[in-house]
């Protein structure tokens, strides 16, 4: 399998006033295509920061990040936005759905940036909502759905534009055991059936067991399992 994500000697330092806070130190990581990787580690270890860098919503202080051969650290803001819309699907801990939009409209959001016809958009949205088992809830607003259902809508939104990489930041962190299990099954299915590469940050060892590979971060350094 070819390497989809190449993180090379990445360092991230945050600046607060005159103080410099190192978060990641000289990290290198390769993620093959079709991988399901879990990143674990205590709070403040830099898991989310590494995820943000890989997904192009933050920039490294030094080093390079190649995703599908593109050095995303070299892209400007608008190019990066376009790249994210084409290549990355996000699943957040707190779902982050638009409360004023229905499940259908939330899933449709990433497609507004494409040139697909109205009919094609509709077909795609309905297809992914069926994949996550919410075909009968597409007209419901987030507040009318349970936490697990909201996260499934978020997953549908993440996969609707057929991204190269799915990024999950504690996707089960706000769910009860049963709902968390359903989400993990769904992610595993996306990985095995739809061949999606997934990088997921989690605190939960049980959630991490769904992944093929587990990497541990501690104090900004990567420690292989």
């Amino acid at each position: 399998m070819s390497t989809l994500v190449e993180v090379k000697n990445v360092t991230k330092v945050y600046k607060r006033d005159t103080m410099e806070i190192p978060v990641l130190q000289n990290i290198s990581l390769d993620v093959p295509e079709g991988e399901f990787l879990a990143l674990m580690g205590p709070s403040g270890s830099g898991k989310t920061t590494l995820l943000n860098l890989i997904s192009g919503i933050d920039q490294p202080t030094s080093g390079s990040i190649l995703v599908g051969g593109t050095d995303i650290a070299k892209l400007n803001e608008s190019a990066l936005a376009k790249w994210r819309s084409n290549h990355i699907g996000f699943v957040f801990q707190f779902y982050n759905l638009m409360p004023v939009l229905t499940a259908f409209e939330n899933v449709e959001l990433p497609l507004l940036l494409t040139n697909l016809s109205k009919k094609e958009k509709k077909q795609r949205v309905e297809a992914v909502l069926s994949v996550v088992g919410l075909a009968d809830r597409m007209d419901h607003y987030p507040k009318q759905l349970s936490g697990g259902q909201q996260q499934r809508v978020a997953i549908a939104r993440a996969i609707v534009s057929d991204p190269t990489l799915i990024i999950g930041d504690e996707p089960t962190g706000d769910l009860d055991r049963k709902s968390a299990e359903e989400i993990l099954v769904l992610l595993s299915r996306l990985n095995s059936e739809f061949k999606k590469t997934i990088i997921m940050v989690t605190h939960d060892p049980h959630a991490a067991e769904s992944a093929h590979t587990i990497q541990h971060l501690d104090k900004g350094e990567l420690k292989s399992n």
Partner: protein
Amino acid sequence: MKILKLIYKNLLRHKLRSLLTIAGIAIAVLAFGLLRTVVTAWSYGVEAASADRLITRHAVAFIFPLPYAYKGQLEQVEGVKKVSFASWFQGIYKDQSFENFFPRLAVDPETIFDVYPEFILPADQLTTFKQQRNSCIIGRKLAEQHNFKIGDVIPVTGDIYPGNWEFTVVGIYSGKDKTADETQMFFNWEYLNERNRQTESFATDQVGWYIIQVDDPNRAASVSEAVDALYVNSPAKTKTETEKAFQQSFVSLSGAIIASMEVVSYVIIGIILMVLANTIIMAARERIREYAVLKTLGFTNFHVVGLIAGESLFISMLGGAVGLLFTFPVCQAFGEAFPTMFPVFAVQPTTIAMAVGFSVLVGVIASVFPAYRSATMRIVDGLRQIG
């Protein structure tokens, strides 16, 4: 689903807040429209002034009269087409209340309607006016306000010209267009002068001012100079100016009031800007995490700015439209309540354009700060924001 739909749905998120903001803007635009209409109505005379009319008055001040004998001499000046004259009579009708005030002028019946062609009077009524010494002609609005009809006698108690006066209405004039003042009363100057002779008044054989109609408006300046040159060594020197300049000098007497009204109208715009800015800043702050999510999904700063500015513009323009819609009936009612104070009280196209322009401007300015803040926000900082 389109971005516009998201703007619309965001508006409905806090219905009461949006409604109150729109209502606030509507009331402010209404107040702005009313004030601007008062300001423009105040100076309507300046706008309505004819380019081919000059006013000759006493050089010292308007209150000093000029000899009637000047009339014949003025008619001989090159470029003068017609000469008429008028005197401010004032007097008291019923009482000194505001609603019973209207301009009462002693005029030359032979010429007054020639130099003011915008006042339309039936020929038979004009003939009677010329023949009957104690007759008067009144404007249509004045007749409607006091229910005066032809044949009615209007009693007036004199103040500048003492005594009891009675004027018989023999005609009602109407304006050629909306800018013509239909609130005046004209009576025969001879009737006034006759009484002045009897009482040996200071104003005997004197007129208030001359109205000169010129052949060519382009020669107004040279005719004015020629007229004033005639009386440069006379005890009653003259000052001749265009009717527009003459009217402007009256308006400038109320300059402070008008200026303060103008300032208040702009302050109102400032207030609605603050109200809307406050609403939009609150809304944008509440949604900062959502904007970060949109950016994460690939939406650009342009989209985020569009969402914020679009909502701001929608509120300001809707409020402006509602306010403008109510401005027309309110101004109409206001004008009808004070017909003699504001002979012409209509919402001007410039007022409408200003209200629309300010609505757009306020919408844009109110969104600048929250839009800038959201556009420059780092995604990771926005995602950390708690709702």
